């Protein structure tokens, strides 16, 4: 790429392979063009056909996911999913990964991940109202972990706080399986009016193409290709490709774009995300059935001497591409200039069906749009599932003192309080946050501004289940999201997903992806919880070691009356504790087994989706009827950990009896699915018990609220000691030398 003329020289197979294309993909390009591409064209093909942009390994499997439903206005395929939340309003949301950049440069990687997902949402006309983050780090004691945690958290906060969108929830796990590849998955939720939703189809020829936002530099060139390859020892030398985020520009871009959207000037709009100007222009032209001609000399540039391919592949942040109605440029220009943002007319839509790029008076690229977008490879990669683990028998487990075990689990990395993280996030800006991290609810609750409605938003995945059995794990992730939303009293509506896996060219990894999608699809279908948007991140491997399979689920639900939102911090002295759902004492793949016995084995707990639905519908009905003081779903660490979280949040002790015919370990720490712990006023107990039985759900009264200790089958644990351990773990890790 040393000169303009080199850009026009024909490329060869070796150069294609260098950019990550296979021999067969190269063959398709030759066939479609009828000639070898030049260097610029090859660069464009290579990013459009990268795993990151084309979903070439996952596309055929993603089709199995249910994507329609009563609430769905727009499913996968646009920048984000759109659902109906009543009163002519829509909720627009998506989750996306920024794993590779965050490992290389945690602050900027995480910050630009947040910026990118926000752009996906406001591109469609929504004002972003909530952010969540699903983070997975390596083992706490691993040499890099602390620096990665502190960089990622500072980056998320630095961006979201500045833009002024509250970060309301998320999850954080630690496991040695992520030592070489952390996961940073960011979710953004926005609100729009249904009559003002913007799509990417640039219908009609001759319309002006406007570039707005920040200038283009050489940032992140081949980022999409990087996200489609494994790490090796050289990867850290690729540091210069990481993009730098500017939340101040993002904030102005949000305000300016939302203002322009009110004017009726816009035909189509796209953010320049992965593969920058290339993928945004190709997608708009392809969906609109038009061609596009761009004059690259007009692209606002931050650096001198940029080559066409560099401009086309740059992943400089905070940029948008807009196709306007003819004659409306002046209106757009006034708005963007007032917000002190670059704005440039860089081209027009055409009727040629080609993407034509000119640079310094020469045509440097002329390729048909169709093959770029539609002929992208679509692989049916071979997959072979590892033999499934057998069901774990807890008979030979050593005896357990449940109070000691509870203390240990509650201060273990995955269960310990993440206050150190979420206190660095502005959770309340916009003044509509009802429950955020630390707010003692199973999901974040955010009021829809100016209404009595609220959204319940949750992010979930239990990677150790997926690693044990991808099908059950995929099912469980969706079910847990549905359960968390139901526990707040909200009606679950739809999900977004972020599928993080290793190298799909390895059959056992491909099997994880395929089976997890199968499990998700089944859960979505039975629970009526369609997928409306998502992202796939593959090649999360270092030196041949893949991450634990991690299909993160971002769920959204709706509460018609925000004041009815329920959490687990309201248990009162004298309340009865009721356990809803069937307890078999399932310890396979449990947190207890991992933390207490250092054993990661056994099949994960199966999810009975019909019972799940039944129990969730019941819980929602009693929450909305106002019959509960507190409710908490049972997940990691089972009954005892759910009870401990309820006690800590409610600032009061509680007593739980032992289980019938179950060991203390199995009863208190088993992770059977589809269960909830309810704190119920004494006067309501009979009613709740009989209503649950009527609904066919297993239910029993198992304890009561009161005192300043948690007492498990007679074994006491002082709440203060529990709180100290629970709150102390992460600050100790991060701030003690």
């Amino acid at each position: 790429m040393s000169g303009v003329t080199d850009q026009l020289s024909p490329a060869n197979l070796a150069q294609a392979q260098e950019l990550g294309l296979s021999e067969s993909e190269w063959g398709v390009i030759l066939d479609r063009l009828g000639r070898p591409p030049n260097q610029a064209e090859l660069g464009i093909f290579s990013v459009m056909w990268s795993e990151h942009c084309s979903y070439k390994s996952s596309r055929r499997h993603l089709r199995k996911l249910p994507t329609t439903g009563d609430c769905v206005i727009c499913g996968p395929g646009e920048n984000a999913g759109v659902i109906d939340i009543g009163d002519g309003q829509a909720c627009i949301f998506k989750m996306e990964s920024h794993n590779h950049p965050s490992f290389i440069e945690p602050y900027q990687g995480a910050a630009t991940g947040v910026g990118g997902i926000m752009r996906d949402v406001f591109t469609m006309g929504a004002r972003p109202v909530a952010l969540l983050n699903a983070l997975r780090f390596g083992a706490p004691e691993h040499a890099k972990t602390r620096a990665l945690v502190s960089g990622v958290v500072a980056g998320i906060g630095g961006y979201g706080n500045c833009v002024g969108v509250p970060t309301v929830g998320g999850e954080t796990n630690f496991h040695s399986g992520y030592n070489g590849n952390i996961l940073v998955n960011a979710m953004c939720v926005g609100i729009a009016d249904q009559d003002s939703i913007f799509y990417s189809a640039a219908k009609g020829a001759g319309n002006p193409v406007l570039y707005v936002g920040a200038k283009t530099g050489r940032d992140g060139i081949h980022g999409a290709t990087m996200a489609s390859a494994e790490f090796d020892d050289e990867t850290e030398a690729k540091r210069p490709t990481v993009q730098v985020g500017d939340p101040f520009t993002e904030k102005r871009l949000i305000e300016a774009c939302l203002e322009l959207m009110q004017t009726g000037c816009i035909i189509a709009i796209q953010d320049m995300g992965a593969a920058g100007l290339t993928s945004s222009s190709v997608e708009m032209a392809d969906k609109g059935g038009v061609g596009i001609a761009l004059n690259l000399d007009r692209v606002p540039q931050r650096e001198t001497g940029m080559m066409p391919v560099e401009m086309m592949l740059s992943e400089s942040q905070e940029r948008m591409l807009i196709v306007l109605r003819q004659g409306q440029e002046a209106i757009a220009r006034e708005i963007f200039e007032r917000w002190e943002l670059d704005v440039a007319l860089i081209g027009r839509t055409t009727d040629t069906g080609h993407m034509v790029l000119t640079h310094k008076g020469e045509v440097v690229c002329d390729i048909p749009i169709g093959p770029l977008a539609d002929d992208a490879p679509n692989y049916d990669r071979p997959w072979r599932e590892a033999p499934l683990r057998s069901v774990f028998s807890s008979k030979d487990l050593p005896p357990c003192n449940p109070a000691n075990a509870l203390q240990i689990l509650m201060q273990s990395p995955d269960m310990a309080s993440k206050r150190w993280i979420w206190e660095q996030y502005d959770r309340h800006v916009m003044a509509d946050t009802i429950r955020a991290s630390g707010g003692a609810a199973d999901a974040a609750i955010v009021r829809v501004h100016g209404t009595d409605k609220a959204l319940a938003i949750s992010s979930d995945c239990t990677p150790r289940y997926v690693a044990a059995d991808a099908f059950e794990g995929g099912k469980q992730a969706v079910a847990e999201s549905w359960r968390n939303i139901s526990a707040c009293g909200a009606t679950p509506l739809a999900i977004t997903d972020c599928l993080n896996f290793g190298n799909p060219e390895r059959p056992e990894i491909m099997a994880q992806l395929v089976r997890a999608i199968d499990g998700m699809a089944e859960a979505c279908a039975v629970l009526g919880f369609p997928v409306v948007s998502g992202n796939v991140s593959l090649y999360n491997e270092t030196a041949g070691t893949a991450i634990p399979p991690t299909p993160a689920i971002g769920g959204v639900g709706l509460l018609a009356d925000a004041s009815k939102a329920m959490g687990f911090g309201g248990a009162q002295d004298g309340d009865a504790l009721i356990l809803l759902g069937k307890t078999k004492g399932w310890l396979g793949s449990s947190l207890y087994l991992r933390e207490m016995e250092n054993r990661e084995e056994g099949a994960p707990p199966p999810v009975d989706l019909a019972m799940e639905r039944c129990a969730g519908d019941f819980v929602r009905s009693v929450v909305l009827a106002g019959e509960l003081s507190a409710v908490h779903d049972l997940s990691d660490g089972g009954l005892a950990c759910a009870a401990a979280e309820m006690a800590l949040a409610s600032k009061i002790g509680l007593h739980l009896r032992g289980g019938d015919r179950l060991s203390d370990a199995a009863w208190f720490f088993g992770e059977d699915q589809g269960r909830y712990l309810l704190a119920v006023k004494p006067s309501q107990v009979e009613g709740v018990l009989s209503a649950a039985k009527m609904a066919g759900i297993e239910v029993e009264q198992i304890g009561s609220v009161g005192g300043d200790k948690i007492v498990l089958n007679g074994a006491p644990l002082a709440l203060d000691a529990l709180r100290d351990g629970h709150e102390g773990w992460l600050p100790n890790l991060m701030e003690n030398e």
Partner: protein
Amino acid sequence: MKAAVIVFPGSNCDRDAVCALRNHTTRHVHRVWHRDSQLPKVDLVFIPGGFSYGDYLRSGAVAARSPIMAAIKEHALNGGLVAGICNGFQILTEARLLPGALMRNAGLKFVCKSAALTVENTKSSFTNAYFGQPTTSIPIAHHDGNYYADNETLDRLEGEGQVIFRYVDNPNGSARDIAGICNAKGNVLGMMPHPERAIDALTGETGGLGFFESLANAMAGARK
């Protein structure tokens, strides 16, 4: 009774401020763009939180030199009320309408949490509604809230009743636990906690209601 909320590029609590003022202080709230050089006729100028100009260079530094600030200085000079919250406090110190400066938090991290406060002066235009209940709780959310002034200035602030809010449990290293101060005349206030986020039990706390009620009282009193 009228109020103006100033909007800088990067302000992000302007909508929250407008809502809080409309619901609890006055129905008549204007938004004023930072590039304007004149204020509408108002009793109160409210500088909201956010990251004006990305907080680049120093928090509030660039905003403090924007065109509207001359008009705000004149409004203050004429005895008009000015309240700066969070980034607004930083802007007011940078504009030298208030003494001291707000430095990086002692813990170096952004801090978002509820802060218990003592209301040190319940006679001010901003705090008269806290009379008889001189403690409250209002959330903070900032990276640069560590109040600094030299000892002489701090002594004067304390001696003249210009320290308005103090933290019960200092979250950011502020000198003498200062969370909010006013100028010598008592018509310009800056504070790091966000009262506009503490006006609704559903979204958390209500400790900021007194702030907006105080302003309503003060503006009504000034009119008499």
